[in-house]
């Protein structure tokens, strides 16, 4: 069973001005981060249970905490996976999903099973790739998109066009 209490506790501790402003010694800052990370774990179980109950299927949910640096083991290795997008806003949003993927072609389907446009682009200063597709998510609700690798095809990844050498 999940538990949000550890994260509540960590957030309470981090109201201290040192945590808010970063005016603590390094080892204290590290401990703040440790408390937050320890709080995430039980919360992710809680969210998984809620999603299983709301979606009607018990999944091994993966929370990729490093999407901002294009790291997500599941999307980078799986041949097919589901993407559940939750919208906390009180209004419907369209949102561009970006996920690190392997060097393949993918088909993305929306909750009704319709194929939606997607692109694979190269990640700057690395040879990684990211899958992009636009998701529509209802107010205070979620949408589940499915992503499937197309076997045997390589993406025509959009080449980076080098430019602007050192000015004269």
């Amino acid at each position, binding site marked *: 069973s999940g538990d949000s209490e550890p994260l509540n506790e960590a957030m309470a501790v981090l109201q201290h001005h040192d945590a808010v402003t970063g005016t603590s010694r*390094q080892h204290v800052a590290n401990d703040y981060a440790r408390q937050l990370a320890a709080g995430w774990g039980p919360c992710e179980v809680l969210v998984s249970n809620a999603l299983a109950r709301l979606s009607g299927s018990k999944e091994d949910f993966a929370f990729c905490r490093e999407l901002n640096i294009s790291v997500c083991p599941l999307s980078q290795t799986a041949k097919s996976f*589901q*993407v559940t997008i939750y919208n906390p806003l009180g209004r419907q949003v369209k949102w561009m999903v970006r996920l690190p993927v392997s060097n393949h072609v993918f088909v993305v389907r929306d909750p009704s099973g319709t194929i939606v446009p997607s692109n694979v682009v190269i990640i*700057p200063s690395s040879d990684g790739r990211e899958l992009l597709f636009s998701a529509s998510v209802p107010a205070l609700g979620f949408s589940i998109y499915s992503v499937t690798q197309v076997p045997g095809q390589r993406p025509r990844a959009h080449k980076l066009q080098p430019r602007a050498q050192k000015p004269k």
Partner: protein
Amino acid sequence: FRVLVIQNEYIRAKFDPDTGFLMEMENLEQNLLLPVRQAFYWYNASTGNNLSSQVSGAYIFRPSQQEPLPVSHWAQTHLVKTALVQEVHQNFSAWCSQVVRLYPGQRYLELEWTVGPIPVGDNWGKEIISRFDTGMDTKGLFYTDSNGREVLERRRDHRPTWELNQTEPVAGNYYPVNSRIYITDGNVQLTVLTDRSQGGSSLRDGALELMVHRRLLKDDGRGVGEPLREDSSGLWVRGRHLVLLDRARTAAAGHRLQAERAVLAPQVVLAPGGGAPYRLE
């Protein structure tokens, strides 16, 4: 070299072919065009001087000189254009890069900056800023928010409640920015939304700057007892600035709604799929 351009239905951004820096932003919907140059600079952190022994540190921002130094005079750029995104990748140096992005339907320019590890081999602490320079006549005024709610007017070298004798021309004009900072000439407004709290200011008319990272070598004597010198993962920082160009009278609607979308952005959870059906009973 041709001018690099990225655009969608609402925004067009042009980049200087010689330097690779952003040089112009256009709001196509409201027919607004603003020459704006954006680049990264660094302040040399003070270690105390004849005026004051105060060192720049965790509690105190105190550059050793008023003018910041450019991280680079040019950026290596790459252009990516697909149906779902147009972006310019800018490499300013080995430790400073940025991706300027536009998605279809987006009414702001996304600047995803990555800074670090800040080199300190020269034994100088450094405080890195992203600075926007425009020709707007802002009359010494700029605006910063308080926790995303009330926006306060700031006037350079001035305090509304007491006669300020400005002794720190840079740090004395820095204010906390929790979610947004903007400048306006009364007709056009340039707003920058942040994805975390940063220090920000407008140190000359038409300019707007935000501090994105710091790496200091001396303690500032205010109680921490060690310099603000992150190690391991804290060496690198990646974040985003969302840049909006609007008419001054309608700008609030734009940045208020966009800031709410940013702070309550959708959350993504992945799963292999094909799980067993699940019902409470």
